[in-house]
């Protein structure tokens, strides 16, 4: 038993314990909070990388909490997908934490600094915990940690609209929570277990057997609805545009970049780890149902994004579309498709994180939120805007950015199904990509090719370095992982294969 074998719990405990210390230290001196959080997330990031390495070398890790064997105690199960999510989560949170130092000082009242960082760490811990757990009820608990902290973070600015957005988010989120709780109860009453691996074994004997299969289906439906709310899958996305656009930008980046992906993770766990792929793909075509929903999400989300005037709201609607890409890939349930969906989690996290951080930088420097007012920013903030452009191109899926690779895999996955619906899905992917181009090119054109209204708009006034660094790292990532996509693929591909059992 070396320390390395405890990595699954370490990645969860680092942020959570930091969250417990932060208020105490913040009470002494508020300036300590930020370095503490940065250090802690860096450690979490390193731990996630180590975790991924040990998963890659030794296969799926099962960690028994308190030494109690799985069906009786809680087991943490880290497969390729879980390790992959941990890396994405800790990486993006690290970027947001670095960014927060200067951004939060201006955006938030001083008294809220400590709660802000505490909640950020709790949210990270919640996401980490939900990613590595192998227990259904435990996932629920960690989902609540991340949900409640995100409700609070959306409203933390105390602005009128933000509070209402948070309330709306909370209301829907609470419904989602209740629905998943019902789903857990149904599965428990049928099988008597909460462990995912055990559940999948015991459920296999119940498929299509008498009336208990009704309960099974209803449980599945409740899970789908509950986690779709958390993942903001169309048509349950209604909370997202308000919440993501009203939150502080660093939080928007985390919410849009990864939090909704954790919802997608839960969907994937329910579909492929608890219910078996054969059941959800063939017996009852749940996956093709959610694929259709995702295809609609892509189109509708993009169309809504086109009609937005507020930059952050546009980005939020774009997230609705892109969660559609992810879920579509998952729902295709083919090797390429699911790999593409999982890969897009990472690529979208980088691109959308970068975009929201850039939007935050624009608001920080100029106070502008309206897309039409952004003229002249290309000269004013050249680096920020260059990063914005790269990330936007990645969202559109222009080579050689990372978005192109996920588009490639998703497209292959859609065609691989070999059915007519696959052709519809690829139509949705390509059309979604084109629609995405429409609203991002509008912003880019405004930034670079439009005369600014005021002369002083063209004075060089770059984002402070502390905020610029994470922006540039994320934008650089969009390009680097587009040229060297094998790095994320080395985890995403086995993850998809393991989930699908192929």
């Amino acid at each position, binding site marked *: 038993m070396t320390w390395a074998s405890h990595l699954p719990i370490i990645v969860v405990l680092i942020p959570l314990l930091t969250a417990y210390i932060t208020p105490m230290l913040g009470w002494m001196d508020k300036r300590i909070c930020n370095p503490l959080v940065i250090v802690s997330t860096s450690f979490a990031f390193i731990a996630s990388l180590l975790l991924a390495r040990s998963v890659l070398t030794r296969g799926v890790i099962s960690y028994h909490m308190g030494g109690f064997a799985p069906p009786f105690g809680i087991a943490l199960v880290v497969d390729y997908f879980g390790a992959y999510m941990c890396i994405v989560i800790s990486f993006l949170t690290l970027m947001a934490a670095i960014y927060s130092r200067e951004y939060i000082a201006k955006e938030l009242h001083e008294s809220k600094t400590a709660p802000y960082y505490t909640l950020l760490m709790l949210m990270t811990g919640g996401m980490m915990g939900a990613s590595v757990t192998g227990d259904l*009820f435990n996932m*629920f*608990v960690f989902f*609540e940690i991340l949900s*409640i902290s995100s*409700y*609070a973070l959306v*409203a933390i600015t*105390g602005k*009128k*609209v933000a*509070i*209402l957005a*948070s*309330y709306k988010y*909370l*209301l829907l989120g*609470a*419904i989602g*929570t*209740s629905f998943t*709780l*019902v789903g*857990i*109860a149904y599965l*428990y*009453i049928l099988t008597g277990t*909460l462990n995912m691996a055990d559940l999948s074994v015991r459920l296999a004997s119940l498929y299509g057997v008498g009336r208990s299969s009704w309960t099974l289906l209803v449980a599945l439906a409740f899970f789908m609805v509950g986690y779709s709310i958390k993942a903001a899958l169309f048509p349950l996305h209604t909370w997202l545009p308000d919440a993501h656009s009203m939150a502080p930008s660093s939080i928007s980046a985390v919410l849009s970049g990864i939090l909704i992906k954790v919802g997608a993770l839960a969907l994937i766990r329910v579909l492929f780890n608890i219910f078996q792929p054969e059941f959800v793909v063939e017996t009852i075509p749940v996956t093709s149902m959610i694929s259709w929903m995702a295809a609609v999400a892509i189109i509708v989300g993009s169309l809504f994004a086109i009609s937005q005037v507020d930059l952050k709201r546009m980005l939020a609607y774009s997230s609705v579309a892109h969660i559609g890409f992810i879920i579509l890939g998952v729902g295709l349930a083919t090797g390429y498709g699911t790999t593409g969906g999982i890969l897009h989690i990472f690529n979208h996290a980088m691109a959308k994180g970068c975009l929201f951080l850039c939007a935050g930088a624009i608001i920080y420097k100029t106070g502008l939120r309206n897309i039409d007012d952004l003229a002249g920013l290309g000269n004013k903030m050249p680096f920020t805007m260059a990063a914005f452009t790269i990330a936007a191109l990645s969202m559109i899926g222009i080579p050689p950015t990372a978005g192109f690779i996920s588009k490639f895999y998703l497209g292959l996955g859609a065609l691989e199904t070999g059915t007519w619906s696959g052709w519809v899905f690829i139509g949705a992917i390509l059309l979604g990509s084109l629609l995405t181009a429409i609203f991002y090119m509008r912003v880019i054109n405004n930034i670079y090719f439009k005369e600014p209204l005021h002369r002083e708009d063209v004075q060089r006034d770059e984002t402070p370095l502390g905020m610029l660094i994470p922006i540039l790292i994320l934008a650089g990532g969009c390009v680097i992982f587009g040229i060297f996509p094998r790095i994320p693929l080395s985890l995403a591909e086995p993850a998809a294969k393991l989930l699908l059992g192929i």
Partner: protein
Amino acid sequence: MVNFGFLLGHYNYWAVVVLFLIGLYAMIVKKNLIKKFMGLNIMDTSIFLFYISMGDVEGGVSPIIAHGGGSDVIYVNPLPSVLILTAIVVAISTTALALSLIIKIYEEYGTLDSDRLVELM
């Protein structure tokens, strides 16, 4: 036609379903934000009831192992109780946050009527 034995055998569950629906209905239809959350709490409570019900065993006693208790003693299922402890705490936490949000909303907007709030937004 109707299998009364079946209906009666699940009577707790039917109560849960009814409670759940009442809660959900209140949550969707009521205009007052606090009433919406009362609806949520009703819904959550119905789920708690459901957990407790499914742990029940005919003639079971509370799961405390008496000294030297034989294996013939029937205990009720302890696991749902454990789960529900956690779930209750979660529900309370959500409600606490929701109520503080509602306080803020009332401070800022001066109303708790959801239609009015949509207008003011």
